[in-house]
């Protein structure tokens, strides 16, 4: 899968990227939402957006909404230490992962997404 990771913490972003590359996925990263939107507007399709909720400049929830208008087929996974209620207002379903990530559940969710794309 082509996965876009949006995470403002450098360490988390880099290690998450390494982990998903180990699983055979192609990863692009952004540290904030506006950069992520620039990536999404490029011609190559992103299969899955993994985003934090708390981001500088624009929240991950807002990013998720706009992402769907740019690439309607994109899958979205929201990761945050905040409660899941942030996602309830979204007009589409997203995968929710509580931070700190429980790795087995997180990787299982990635595999589920991957399965639906094949």
């Amino acid at each position, binding site marked *: 899968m082509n996965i876009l990771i949006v995470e403002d913490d450098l360490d988390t972003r880099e290690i998450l990227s390494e982990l998903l590359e180990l699983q055979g996925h192609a990863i692009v990263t952004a540290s904030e939402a506006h950069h992520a939107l620039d990536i999404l507007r490029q011609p190559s399709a992103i299969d899955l957006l993994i985003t934090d909720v708390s981001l500088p400049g624009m929240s991950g929830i807002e990013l998720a909404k706009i992402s769907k208008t740019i690439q309607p087929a994109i899958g979205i996974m929201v990761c945050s*230490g905040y409660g899941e209620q942030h996602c309830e207002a979204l007009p589409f379903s997203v995968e929710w992962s509580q931070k700190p990530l429980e790795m087995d559940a997180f990787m299982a969710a990635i595999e589920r997404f991957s399965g639906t794309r094949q």
Partner: protein
Amino acid sequence: MSIVADTALFDQLRNEVINRVMPGLRHKMLGKLQPITLLSHVLSRKVHAGSADAAYIQTQVDEIKLNAKILTNATQNLFTWVAQDSPFQLPADELVSECVELLKMECYTNNLIIANHVSEQQMLPAQEARVLLCAGIILLADKQGTEKKLQIRAQGNSIQFTWNKACAGTQTINTGLLKNWDWVANISEQCEIVQSDSGVQFNFKNVAV
């Protein structure tokens, strides 16, 4: 040395500020914790796959130890917010940076643009200064209006907030102490807070400069 004249009033202000910075504190804590979880998971996968040599394992273990140390420091810092008996002193530049970073997540929705010009400082304000500075930023962030701009500078024993007109006028959306600057006159003893139409200056007395 405490800079607080009215302890009860300061406690009320501190509680209101903590309510606002808690999401930011939680975000920071998780940011320090998450790399440890991820590094451990990557290391485990590589060891099981037989693709991790001794040098790689040592590098990852060093990374985990470093992140654990950072997490420990972040945890201790968290306690200085919530426990009165956890004294600390930070140089003014680190103090201001922490306040700005913590509130940035909250402020962006309120159209406050913060320019922090405070570079390396020897000034060591008392720990209560963190609450006063955060309260000031929250108050400005919660003013109604757009194009609100705040510049933060430090000189000598002072930290200065300078703002544009959009920050000066309208009421904030808050109730309680963070509604306006009324708390200023009664709250500080060793910190003189001087207000004008274009800003506010926190003059810390008896601090190491």
